[in-house]
């Protein structure tokens, strides 16, 4: 089998081999979640920051199942609708885990979970000034992506479709434009529903894909996690290989010369 040169990606000075980041929400239990993470090959998982249940302090914790020393925890700000709430959440996350690398998302409304870019940009600037390394969930808008980068985002993460929708990448043109214009890694975050859609993100030249529901809500989450690992790798290889040009009509694959 041919060996290809090692293909890694780097965000804020940290280098990873896996281009798949997986969420840790919506799983049946922690054991299934841990098995899915393993099958996905992910080196980074997103986690949320929430109040401890003070009436049941001995309840199992995520950290008991997914070891933060082996897998990078990327704390998120899911559920935050203002820059202030998101920043407050990440300050706590930094204290809880000691990580500067964080996922910022500031949502605009519950129905679409579409990002509020005005608040997102404001939060990015403040976080970057406080020494955070924010990977930022954003709209699939190349100008907004540029502005985030200028504000200190260490990665831009445009949505492919609304969070949890599984509708696939709706706007391949704008995702490609973001990739072409970005100096920081670009990851499609949200919207992927099945393996082919993860491959599409990678074929567009994205550095990675972040997903949660597509794995957690599959009939067999652990198998889907493996499918996503393979799809991300396949899409990446296809991008690096460079796809063939498209023709409007057929072009025979067998020679015409020597035909009997």
């Amino acid at each position, binding site marked *: 089998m041919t060996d290809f040169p090692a293909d890694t990606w780097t965000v804020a000075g940290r280098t990873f081999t896996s281009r798949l980041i997986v969420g840790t929400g919506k799983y049946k239990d922690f054991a299934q979640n841990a098995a899915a993470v393993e099958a996905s090959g992910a080196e980074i998982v997103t986690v949320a*920051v929430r109040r401890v249940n003070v009436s049941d302090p001995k309840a199992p914790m995520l950290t008991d199942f997914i070891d933060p020393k082996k897998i990078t*925890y990327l704390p998120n700000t899911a559920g935050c609708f203002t820059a202030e709430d998101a920043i407050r959440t990440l300050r706590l996350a930094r204290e809880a885990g000691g990580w500067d690398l964080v996922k910022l998302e500031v949502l605009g409304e519950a129905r679409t979970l579409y990002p509020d870019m005005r608040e997102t940009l404001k939060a990015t600037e403040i976080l970057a000034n406080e020494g955070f390394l924010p990977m930022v969930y954003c709209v699939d808008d190349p100008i907004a992506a540029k502005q985030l980068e200028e504000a200190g985002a260490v990665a831009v993460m445009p949505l492919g479709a609304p969070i*949890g929708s599984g509708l696939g990448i709706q706007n391949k043109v704008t995702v490609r434009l973001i990739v072409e214009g970005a100096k920081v890694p670009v990851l499609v975050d949200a919207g992927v529903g099945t393996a082919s859609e993860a491959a599409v993100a990678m074929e567009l030249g994205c550095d990675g894909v972040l997903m949660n529901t597509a794995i957690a809500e599959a009939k067999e989450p652990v198998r889907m996690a493996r499918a996503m690992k393979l799809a991300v790798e396949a899409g990446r290889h296809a991008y690096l290989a460079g796809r063939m040009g498209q023709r409007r009509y057929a072009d025979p694959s067998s020679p015409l010369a020597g035909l009997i």
Partner: protein
Amino acid sequence: MAAEILLTVNGEPRRIAAGSSIADLVAQIGLDPKKVAVEHNAEIAPRSTLADVTLSEGDVLEIVHFVGGG
């Protein structure tokens, strides 16, 4: 005879002996301080200082940890 003070912890009222520190509160609840982060009156309370901060009547605390999320 130890007097008690009233706090708000994660949105709920909670009593603790006067003179207790944040570390005492975390221990009283039964949490591993290495796995949580504490916000004290809207300011981060660094883990290294939890034993040094004495709680006062009416203090508001948020104690958080990591949970599954996307």
